[in-house]
């Protein structure tokens, strides 16, 4: 039945704000700037927006201040919080709301001042331990979230012979894409040996295996396809969307080398009616270098255990066999706490052909994959500038 949704909804506008460092701005100010730009990009005004999706990693009732700040009267509200994948996971509920006529234009938005905020990481960790306890993990002081990803990386290396050098390939590929993206935060040269020599944080992951900590906001606007055709940009159709969650804690994950992307990926591709051969560009949530390896495997772009060799020799870098994370990723472009909305925005820009030097030639279909928590939530979307 979901297959009938593949021609119903399109992304009509995208916007970003405050990428990198946004001194002097609050979270909601950045969010509202990105929202305003996305609405304008869609050829609409804020008065046209009657659906809202948003999430915050600190405020538990975040939809309300966002609605208030933007002056909205939404008929559809989704503030589902699944960590960084949330803004990919918001797609399907929004599509159903649009298709049913519950609302006519949905704004999905997020903003964070994680880099410049005075409320520091130490306070956040302390507050989380009280408000959202994990009594069976906290006594052992894993650094959240990196130690969880490190445990997965260590297991993958043990089970499949994946090497730190192969993980470093992911960071270097991301940097090479970032060097072609004027919006990217980190654009200085990076070699594999630099990654290998960087400070170890939680073995086997070093500081250059980890995503950036930046400010930034992103937003996109969804409308029904027939309306999108009358708006300024060529519509980017949401062909498929699926979300899967199997666990929250890394200690509850059945197999640390297999994420729920192995479920969300096939479901999204089935809904979209596409196969791997149809995918021209891939945007994955690379919070850590191991993510890219795990998701390429779980999403079926290579066999389980072969992700390391898949990314070797610049395989996913510019000029490689598969374009992955073309904005520079969370590793080198932007990562304000939750990154999921930015992979969708990059996919839209690629499908519109707006990416200049880093443009993947004649990209028609993109796969977007969001991750949240500690490999906990997985959400896949298939976007296309045509309906296959």
């Amino acid at each position, binding site marked *: 039945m979901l297959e009938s949704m593949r021609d119903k909804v399109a992304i009509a506008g995208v916007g970003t704000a405050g990428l990198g460092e946004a001194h002097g701005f609050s979270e909601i100010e950045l969010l509202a700037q990105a929202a305003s730009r996305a609405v304008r990009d869609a050829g609409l005004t804020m008065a046209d927006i009657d659906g809202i999706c948003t999430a915050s990693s600190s405020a538990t009732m975040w939809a309300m201040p966002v609605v208030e700040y933007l002056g909205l009267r939404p008929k559809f509200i989704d503030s589902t919080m699944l960590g960084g994948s949330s803004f990919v996971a918001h797609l399907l509920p929004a599509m159903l709301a649009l298709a049913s006529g519950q609302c006519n234009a949905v704004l999905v938005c997020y903003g964070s001042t994680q880099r410049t905020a005075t409320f520091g990481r130490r306070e956040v960790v302390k507050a989380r331990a009280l408000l959202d306890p994990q009594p*069976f993990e906290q006594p052992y*002081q*894993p*650094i959240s979230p990196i130690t969880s990803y490190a*445990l997965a990386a*260590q297991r993958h290396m*043990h089970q499949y012979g994946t090497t730190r050098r192969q993980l470093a390939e992911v960071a270097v590929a991301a940097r090479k894409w970032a060097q072609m993206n004027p919006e990217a935060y980190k654009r200085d040269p990076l070699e594999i040996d630099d990654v290998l020599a960087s400070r170890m944080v939680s073995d*086997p992951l070093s500081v250059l295996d980890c995503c950036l900590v930046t400010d930034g906001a992103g937003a996109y606007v969804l409308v029904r396809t027939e309306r999108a055709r009358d708006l300024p940009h060529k519509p980017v159709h949401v062909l498929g969307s699926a979300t899967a969650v199997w666990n929250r804690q890394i200690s509850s994950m059945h197999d640390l080398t297999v994420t729920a992307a192995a479920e969300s990926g096939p479901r999204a591709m089935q809904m979209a009616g596409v196969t791997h051969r149809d995918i021209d560009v891939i945007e994955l949530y690379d919070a850590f270098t191991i993510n890219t390896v795990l998701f390429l495997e779980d999403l079926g772009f290579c066999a389980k255990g072969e992700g390391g060799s898949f990314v070797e020799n610049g395989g996913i870098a510019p000029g490689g066999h598969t374009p992955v994370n073309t904005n520079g990723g969370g590793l080198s472009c932007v990562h304000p706490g939750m990154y999921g909305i930015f992979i969708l925005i990059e996919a839209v820009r690629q499908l519109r052909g707006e990416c200049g030097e880093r443009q993947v030639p004649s990209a028609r279909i993109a796969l977007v994959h969001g991750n949240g928590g500690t490999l906990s939530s997985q959400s896949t979307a298939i976007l296309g500038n045509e309906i296959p």
Partner: protein
Amino acid sequence: MVDNNEVSARGPEAHYFGRLSEGVFEIQRCGACGRHQFFPRVLCTHCGSEDLNWVTPSGRGTIYSYSVVRRKPEAGGDYNVVLVDLDENVRLMSRVEGVEPGELRIGQRVQARVAVEDGKGVLVFDLVEESHA
């Protein structure tokens, strides 16, 4: 084994940590499907039954994965975080005590021990030499 009346007197989380503070490590075994689970819950994640019993596991297990968290010496130095698969087929997070960070390997056999400090129990593991029978 502890009877279910005690389970119903307090939630499984309070029971688990209460027993741990007495120096006793217990996990749940399902009376309906016979499987163990960790962490403790009010229902079995294998079959949904609420017929859960507390049992004392062998405490023997195998390191499934590990990480060494790097910390400045003045803050206490490096420490390890491990995932252990108990022989009862459940996984949990813990640490291995008395080892240098470089000594840890996936597949090493470990034995559980309850360390009680200031009236609070913490489950930790020690490496054990074990011949492969």
